């Protein structure tokens, strides 16, 4: 049963034109550094591919631009680092479940990776546990991975603590990998900075923030919110307070800015995804940024 992965694929085909998907694949393929000299084959150029890889002679012979592929560039390790804490069971900016969004993002990236022949591993954790899944290259493996995430994240689960998961990754991950951290709108702490910095020296790190829900009531939204970490309710009265809203808007913009600035200063490309509709576009931007940042 490939329920979750099929959902990912469906989302891909719903939200993206074929062109965009190809673009996305091209972006993914071109984000890897290491090239060997073992030439593998030629394939048609896709937008996003590195221009350096174009085989000009072959291109001249045929009518379409062709790029060279090397064996070493075809086997990468991708590690998905996911927050499995209670925070992920909350709702996202769009009102969807953050868990669903995280699974979608993980599924999209994992699917791109497996299609590319890369091996995908999973590391997820929270305050109380750390779970990991070894690398695998099959769609079935990816499906199992997504199911693990789905099962692990629950509203009654442990509190989130991404720093610990990252620390674990720093200690355990020896093989050079492409690490994609799937987190949310958390505050950029010193610990986070330290662990990400150490992680980034050995690996390539990408950051995906699943956008958290707006805590203020806007445009007739009078529902009551409950904080998953404290269990405290946020009554509609507070959500409508104008002064509080102004302070909140300022503060949350500042918080997001701080996270982005911190990641940028480490050289980590990041993107914030608030809904499933913007997931593919967001990931495209993320890969693009990563490719640029590397140069």
């Amino acid at each position, binding site marked *: 049963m490939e329920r979750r992965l099929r959902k990912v694929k469906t989302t891909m085909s719903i939200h993206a034109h074929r062109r965009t998907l190809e673009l996305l694949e091209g972006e993914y393929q071109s984000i890897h550094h290491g090239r060997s000299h073992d030439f593998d084959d030629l394939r048609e150029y896709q937008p996003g591919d590195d221009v350096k890889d174009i085989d000009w002679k072959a291109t001249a012979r045929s009518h379409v631009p062709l790029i060279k592929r090397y064996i070493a560039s075809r086997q990468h390790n991708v590690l998905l680092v996911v927050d499995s804490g209670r925070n992920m069971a909350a709702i996202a900016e769009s009102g969807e479940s953050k868990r669903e969004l995280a699974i979608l993002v993980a599924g999209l990236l994992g699917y791109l990776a497996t299609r590319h022949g890369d091996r995908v591993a999973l590391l997820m954790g929270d305050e109380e546990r750390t779970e990991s899944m070894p690398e695998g290259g099959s769609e079935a493996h990816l499906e199992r991975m997504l199911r693990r995430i789905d099962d692990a994240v629950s509203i009654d689960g442990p509190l989130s603590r991404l720093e610990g998961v990252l620390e674990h990754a720093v200690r355990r991950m020896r093989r050079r990998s492409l690490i994609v951290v799937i987190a949310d709108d958390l505050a950029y702490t010193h610990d986070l900075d330290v662990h990400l910095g150490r992680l980034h020296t050995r690996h390539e790190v990408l950051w995906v923030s699943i956008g958290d829900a707006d805590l203020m009531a806007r445009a007739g939204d009078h529902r009551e919110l409950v904080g*998953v970490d404290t269990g405290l309710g946020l009554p509609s009265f507070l959500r409508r307070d104008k002064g509080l809203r102004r302070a909140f808007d300022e*503060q949350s913009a500042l918080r997001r800015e701080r996270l982005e600035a911190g990641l940028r200063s480490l050289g980590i490309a990041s993107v914030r995804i608030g809904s499933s509709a913007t997931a593919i576009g967001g990931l495209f931007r993320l890969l693009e940024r990563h490719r640029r940042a590397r140069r």
Partner: protein
Amino acid sequence: MDVSLLWPWLLPIVVVAGLALAIVGLLLPKRRRDRGLPVAHVDRMTALPAFRGALARYRLWIGAALVAALAGVAVAGAVAARPSGVHANQEDDYKRDIVLCLDVSGSMVDVDAEILGVYQDIAASLDGERIGMRIFDASSVMAFPLTSDYDYIQEQLGRYVRALTGTLGPDEQFNYLAGTASGLGASLVGDGLASCVLDFADLEASERPRSIILATDNVVNGQQIFTLPQAGQLAVDNEVRVYAINPFDWGRDMASQELREIAEGTGGAYFSLDFAQTVPQIVDRVNAIEAGYIETPPQIQVVDRPGALPLVVLLLVAGVVAMAWRARL
């Protein structure tokens, strides 16, 4: 105004029930987790300095709404406990029956006119009392029966006053003496009084106090069917009080003495018309004596007197609703 609670036990019940509901309402939100949408990183809001003020305002609204609701419950409980007062209703209009029994022999005409004049004045302000009138000489004639139609009474009394004083208009000429001369003799007081007593048509049925204003000099001239003592006994039997007015009381003459005894024997009174007493004064005194027989005990009623309390409840409920709306409870 003396207000007491008719069901005082209801007030504590309502107040206790209200307090219990309030406590339950305060404790229940502890299980609110299922009620809202789960969101992460609430510290984005709760860590703000503005949050503390907003929370204080929120609690203030809820507290105010709670206080108003409890006050409303208390006042509603007070209303439910039926604040009531005692209302004593003293009916001071006496519903009695009066028959004016007038001797119309020649010597009595002036006195009769005066009595009628007084009753004409009184009739204007009567309510519920019935007045009838009978005149007699050798035989008696009913001028008008007991009635509470005061317009009619005044009209008839006025007509007789004018007839007795000889001031009838040209269109209303009538012989007021017609029918009073068919007996044997003149001024047959016993017969006259007896027929007046029998004028109380529903003698058995009515419990209204009965009185007769008897104007006569008690100078009997002829054969009576009823003697005056017999007529007096008839009045006593039928609980009729006779108030006699005698314009010609010469002190110790037999006729006056007899009239006094008869009148006082029925529970009524005797008045001699002299310089000390005028007809209006006598009528006032008759009415004063009669008032003593009017037994209308004050009606004690227990009346609900919630006063402005229901309005207060209404305002408090409106306040609670407004505050609950304001706080988006």
